């Protein structure tokens, strides 16, 4: 009879530590290949698993090996059908024995493996951080997490600690000498046996004494409870404050007719990336999507990215809508407010001034951070590259950029531009913010 051990319920992922070590070792190379994949591929696919090639650098395991292309050796092979001794068989191209086992040492490392979504995003987001999150109000305690902390004499029934309670009850019963069931049973049995035999005076006397004793014991048992309220112990929990990072991210996008397919696509990509980033970094973050034409509207994520609408372009409507939502739902003292706006720069004549006043007046004070990306034509990219010139909205925002350190703006022309811009916008603490 062998010993059986059922290991199926043992913790899984025993080799997770090894995997993490491996990924750390290959980190730089993996990071590069993930970045390339996200840069060239569809950005909505970023939020998933990725297959990557086994990195070459840093993961080889060298050892002394015989070179295949030197020396004389013999191969012993099964299945000879038509060779006889002395036959010469031309080698197939490139050295190596004709039918010898193929060099699998080199190919063993040449395979693709899958990185989980978490690992992909970790690599992708490395050294990124939302600016000013350091400023997080750590004093502002919004959530508590219960943590075990010993035992208490009071509490709710669900928290009764049965082990402790029964230990106390047992001790108390012993100390107060509560009659046990066996003692009662013994007396009852004796009474029964006496009563079944023909009665004598002795027996009757004995029965009476026993009944009295039984009565006494039963009364004592009633007085001394099996489990008394004093025995009961409860698991005690301390509420531990969890610092809470409340943040709300406003995504503003122009979906008007002036935004072509390409512009929309780029803007979408920017937001998807942003969205991903936020979802990843902060679990308690809310995102508000505002799309606008000549009218602004708060929509859900799906509509924001995939529904179309046509109309004119009045950017200030979106800013007004944002302001309205902030005042009604996200008081600035409870929330860190971040905003990102994508547009092609077109705006209804005269509206840019209104935008400036809106931002200067109230919004920039409420926002921790406001990012503006302008989607421009590829041909314009080299013209506008670094100049201050540009669309009316760009010029208008330029003045805000000068005035507010927590305002950032950038231009995007091709999908490949998005990622660098993204990093620039959300790179570790831009120096400008230090001035704040």
């Amino acid at each position, binding site marked *: *009879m*062998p*010993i*059986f*051990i059922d*290991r*199926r319920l*043992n913790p*899984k*992922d*025993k*080799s997770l*530590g*090894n995997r*993490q*070590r*491996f990924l750390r*070792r290959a980190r730089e190379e993996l990071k590069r290949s993930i970045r390339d994949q996200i840069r060239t591929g569809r950005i909505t696919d970023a939020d998933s698993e990725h297959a990557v090639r086994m990195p070459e650098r840093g*993961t*080889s*395991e*060298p*050892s*002394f*090996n*015989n*070179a*295949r*292309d*030197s*020396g*004389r*050796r*013999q*191969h*012993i*092979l*099964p*299945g*000879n*059908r038509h*060779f*006889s*001794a*002395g*036959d*010469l*068989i*031309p*080698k197939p191209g490139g*050295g*190596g*024995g*004709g*039918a*010898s*086992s193929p060099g699998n040492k080199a190919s*063993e490392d040449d*395979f693709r*493996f899958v990185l989980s979504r978490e690992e992909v995003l970790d690599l992708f987001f490395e050294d990124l951080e939302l600016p000013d999150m350091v400023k997080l109000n750590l004093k502002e305690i919004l959530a508590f997490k219960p943590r075990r902390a010993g035992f208490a004499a009071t509490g709710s029934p669900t928290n009764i600690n049965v082990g402790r309670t029964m230990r106390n009850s047992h001790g108390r019963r012993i100390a107060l000498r509560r009659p046990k069931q066996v003692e009662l049973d013994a007396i009852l049995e004796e009474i029964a046996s006496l009563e079944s035999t023909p009665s004598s005076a002795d027996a009757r006397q004995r029965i009476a004494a026993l009944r009295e004793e039984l009565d006494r014991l039963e009364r004592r048992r009633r007085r001394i409870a099996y489990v008394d309220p004093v025995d009961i112990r409860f698991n005690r929990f301390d509420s531990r404050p969890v610092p809470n990072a409340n943040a709300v991210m406003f995504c503003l996008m122009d979906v008007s007719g002036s935004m072509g397919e390409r512009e929309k696509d780029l803007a979408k990509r920017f937001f998807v990336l942003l969205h991903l980033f936020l979802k990843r970094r902060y679990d308690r973050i809310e995102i508000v999507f505002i799309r606008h034409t000549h009218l602004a509207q708060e929509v859900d994520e799906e509509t924001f990215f995939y529904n179309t609408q046509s109309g004119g372009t009045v950017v200030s409507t979106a800013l007004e809508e944002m302001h309205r939502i902030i005042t009604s739902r996200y008081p600035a003292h409870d929330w860190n407010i971040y905003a990102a706006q994508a547009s092609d720069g077109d705006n209804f004549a005269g509206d840019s001034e209104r935008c400036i006043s809106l931002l200067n007046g109230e919004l920039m004070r409420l926002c921790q951070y406001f990012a503006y990306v302008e989607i421009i034509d590829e041909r314009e990219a080299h013209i506008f590259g670094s100049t201050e010139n540009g669309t009316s909205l760009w010029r208008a925002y330029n003045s805000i950029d000068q005035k507010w350190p927590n305002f950032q703006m950038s231009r995007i022309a091709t999908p490949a531009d998005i990622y660098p811009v993204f990093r620039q916008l959300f790179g570790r603490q831009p120096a400008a913010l230090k001035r704040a």
Partner: protein
Amino acid sequence: MARQASKSSLLFSGSDWDFKTLSRAYDAIEALAVEELHLDTYPVQMEIISSQQMLDAYSSIGMPLMYRHWSFGKHFLHQDLLYRKGGRGLAYELVINSNPCIVYLMEENTMALQALVTAHAALGHNHFFKNNQLFKQWTDAGAILSYLDFAKGYIVRCEERHGLAAVEAVLDSAHALMDQGVFRYHRPPRLSSERQREGIRERLEYEERSYNDLWRTLPASQQAANDKGQDPEWKKSLNLPEENLLYFLEKNSPVLEPWQREIIRIVRVIAQYFYPQRQTQVMNEGCATFVHYTLMNMLFDRGQISEGAMLEILRNHSNVVFQPAFDDPRFSGINPYALGLDMMQDIQRISTKPTAEDRDWFPDMAGQGNWREVLLDAWAEHRDESFIRQYLSPALIRKWRFFVLGDAADQPHCLVASIHDERGYAKIRAALANSYDLGANRPDIQVVDVDLLGDRHLRLQHKVNDGILLEDASRDATLRHIRRLWGYEVSLAAMDAETGATIHERSTSQIAG
């Protein structure tokens, strides 16, 4: 064996298993193994695991406990990929040479498979581990698990104390030398007990704080310079030449800290532990396959296994012993299960129904009918190389249609040197045996000289057999690892084994970065 069949004597029915059935099957199989095959085994500990856990075990070289290292993570990815692609099924079992013998069974197996696996691993492999000389002399089944436990804990402590990167660097270098980290020709010392290890560690900690003349950094005294003609005492104590590079570095490296030496020792002990397994693949798998095949058929003949279950067992069995011919796209070398099983069944045949040819080749055992004793003896005394050299029969060479292909790098053609004919049998047998001789097939690299009083230049020598050189890139990378462990310049000279002429020399100072 006459059929004493009756439905009620079935060990199990249906494909589901539970622990009671497993236990009943094990008891029946074990009784049969002892009675019919005279097997002698360690007590068995069967562990039921999931496929995920099997993959885990795969990547940590099949051991239930292993220290952490990135290369195991990489191997896991590779195994996982093969498994997911369906390119490779998982083994139904994994067996560990320990006492008690640990057998992993996959939970997905059907009961018929569990019975097959029990016979294969819990009895076949187990008997081989317990009785084969190589395992008896070279490994310590009783101590390996506690040693691995110690190793894992020690490496964790080192990581805490010296940092992941430092530990990883030593492990990387030691892993590169694992093939050169075994004693091939003399038996390694027994693994020490927990208490002894504790003592060793204390001693190491003491040495850490004290001075050793071997690592003197002061200029040599006048007297030492006068002694130049003959090997001084310190050099004799190095016991050069030394084939076990890890052992040499562990004991003599001038730059390693005691904890680094201990890590090298751990890698070395593990390499040594696996050395017998690599020399007995054909025998070990052959023995287990022969045992399961014989026992399952006996159980079937006795009516203890149903026809349906037997069919399933036979189907799995024939998958395991499948051997494609050399020109088949599925060919990937000789299947040790197939060769081992065939040779052992051949021994059975020669003992019971020999031909005239067999009487010629194997006068000792042909027709003696004592195949059990012959097999038990072969399992106990041989490794692959000697087993093939002694027992590969002409009949089997014909059955397999073996041929020897001579392959010289400087020729445009391969030469068919021998085929399965009268003139070829002995040559094929010798060539096949040689191909299983690990000692002859792995590069022969030894420490030959070291200048401890001068620039501490470590000289290695590679004996080149049949003109087979080392692969340049991996050689340079490995030399860099040796340099890291030695701390000073290391050079490797390739010397032709026949002529004694030096072919070339490579030194770490020639290798960039």
